């Protein structure tokens, strides 16, 4: 899987590369408008991460030209400008997603995977992991082929873990994913109790202990 990161801040691009490389992606970095434009035109990537404010031009123009020549390209905009106009314009121009800085790397990873999954497995949307099989289309979760009932938030939580297997996901990232901006500040008791419930439901259906708390930082999902 090849991912192109068009980002002028070197350290941010490096962090993304480091995280994604561990996920098994091949990452290419480029830091200005011209190179970004050129690379997106010349090569094919599974996903392109595009910053809007770039030296030499606007990322949205790269997007426009890219969508003209390769309408199927998967693009996620990452921008410091939390502006609705940019977001609407970006999505209208054909971007798949929009992420505002600062973002959690686990969130970026989850979004990249979702975008790529939507492109590559248009027919069957199934994530499998060990004894778990999730049908994304019907929002069905099966363990050992037995369907289990999860609430909406528990389901979202499980998907988030499945997309970030074997990585420590911070509770802040989970809170933002599940609660959004307005409610994610303050206490984490909602997160704790949802993780507890999800864990209980998984164990009751015969799955091993997948979710492990890592000190106070967050959680790691994976097989022992």
């Amino acid at each position: 899987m090849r991912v192109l990161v068009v980002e002028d801040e070197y350290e941010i691009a490096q962090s993304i590369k480091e995280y994604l490389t561990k996920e098994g992606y091949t990452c290419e970095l480029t830091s200005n408008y011209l190179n970004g434009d050129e690379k997106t035109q010349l090569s094919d990537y599974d996903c392109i991460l595009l910053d809007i404010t770039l030296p030499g031009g606007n990322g949205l123009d790269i997007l426009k030209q890219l969508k003209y020549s390769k309408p199927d390209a998967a693009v996620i905009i990452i921008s410091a400008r939390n502006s609705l106009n940019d977001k609407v314009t970006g999505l209208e121009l054909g971007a798949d997603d929009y992420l505002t800085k600062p973002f959690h790397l686990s969130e970026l990873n989850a979004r990249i995977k979702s975008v790529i999954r939507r492109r590559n497995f248009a027919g069957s949307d199934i994530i499998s992991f060990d004894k778990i099989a999730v049908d994304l289309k019907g929002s069905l979760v099966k363990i050992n082929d037995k369907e289990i009932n999860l609430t909406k938030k528990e389901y979202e939580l499980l998907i988030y873990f499945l997309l970030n297997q074997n990585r420590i996901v911070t509770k802040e990232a989970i809170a933002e994913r599940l609660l959004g901006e307005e409610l994610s500040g303050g206490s984490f008791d909602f997160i704790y109790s949802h993780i507890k419930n999800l864990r209980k439901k998984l164990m009751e259906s015969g799955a091993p202990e997948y979710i492990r708390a890592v000190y106070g930082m967050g959680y790691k999902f994976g097989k022992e």
Partner: protein
Amino acid sequence: MKLITRTTLYFVAITLPVFAVGGILFYHSVRSVTRSDADEKLVNEEKRVLGYIKAHGDIPRNSIAFGDTVAFTIAAGAPITKVLKDTILYNSQEKEIEPYRMLVFGANTGNKSFRVIIFKPLIETDDLTHAILKSLAISGAILLLLLIVLEVGMSKTLWKPFYDTLEKLKSFNIAKGGRQNFTKSGISEFNVLNASLQSLTDKLSSDYKSLREFTENASHEIQTPLTIIQSKLELIIQSETLNRGQTGNIQLALESVTRLSKLNNALLLLTKIGNRQFTEENYLALDLLIKEKLEQVKEITEHRNLTVQTHLNPMKVKCNPTLLDILVGNLIGNAIKHNLQGGNIEVVTGSDKLIIKNTGTPTSLKPEELFARFKRANPSSGSLGLGLAIVKEICDTYGFKVNYDYRDLTHCITVNF
């Protein structure tokens, strides 16, 4: 009260005693003039009477010839001293007492001694007072009329530039921007005032604008290092070799970075609302938006055992979609965060009003502090203290009125659209 009305009133207040004193003076001088005039005439008549007696050797039979009432009585004994004095006589025709000047003197016809009294009527006090009051009242009324005409005229011409300036100052809104042009007039004081106000408002506007720009730029600049810190910390925690003490510190650093970035986002949002960067406006169905929001937080309210009651009458609000979303989100988020375990939330819409009530312990903040930035009842709660400030900023921008009330263990926030 208008300045010019007040000056007119002062003028009237000064004029009244002047008129009164003038009236009294006038009254006394008229009286003394008529008296001395009467005295003079009486002395003249005395001479004529004495001349007649000298010529004819007898008193005149027809006293009318002398114009005034002349009375002769035979006087015996002591010689008569000449006396000039005031007296009053009863006028039987007019049935009233009238003032007279009276001259008493003695006259001899050779064999007889007479006492002669000549009466001369004076102007009646009543008549005089009347006449004076009347003329004073008429001239006073004319003066007042002229003053009013002058006032209206002055405020229309002389003070017009001043009132123009006042109007411009009243409509000056620093947040809305735009230059106020204070025009020149023919009066130098007003020109000085206008020039000072011009430079003052220009300075205010430019300072305000640069402050806002600075806030926005600073927030943007802060995003990048925040992203770097956060991503580096997230990479570090993936490492297998960390010990417990290190993870504890990294966890604290992560929490602070998250808080900082939230703070930064909120400040940026406040600045953008203030700068009116949310220009799109639509009529939005508030009741549907609330339904959607409550659905989103359903699991959270269930988790906290909150009972949510709604009375949602359809209503449309003219607002920017993003901002209305934030407004509703913040208010509902607040009602959840500051609630009691097993408490209630009540949301009512209708007749251009949104009411959100929730059970909760009383806040230590005063109602007016509640909407201020960085004010929070419990500083260690992890809340930024900007949620309601953002609500207030949105309401101020669109002219909505937001109120807070606490009664019967229930927080109640009302937004009047």
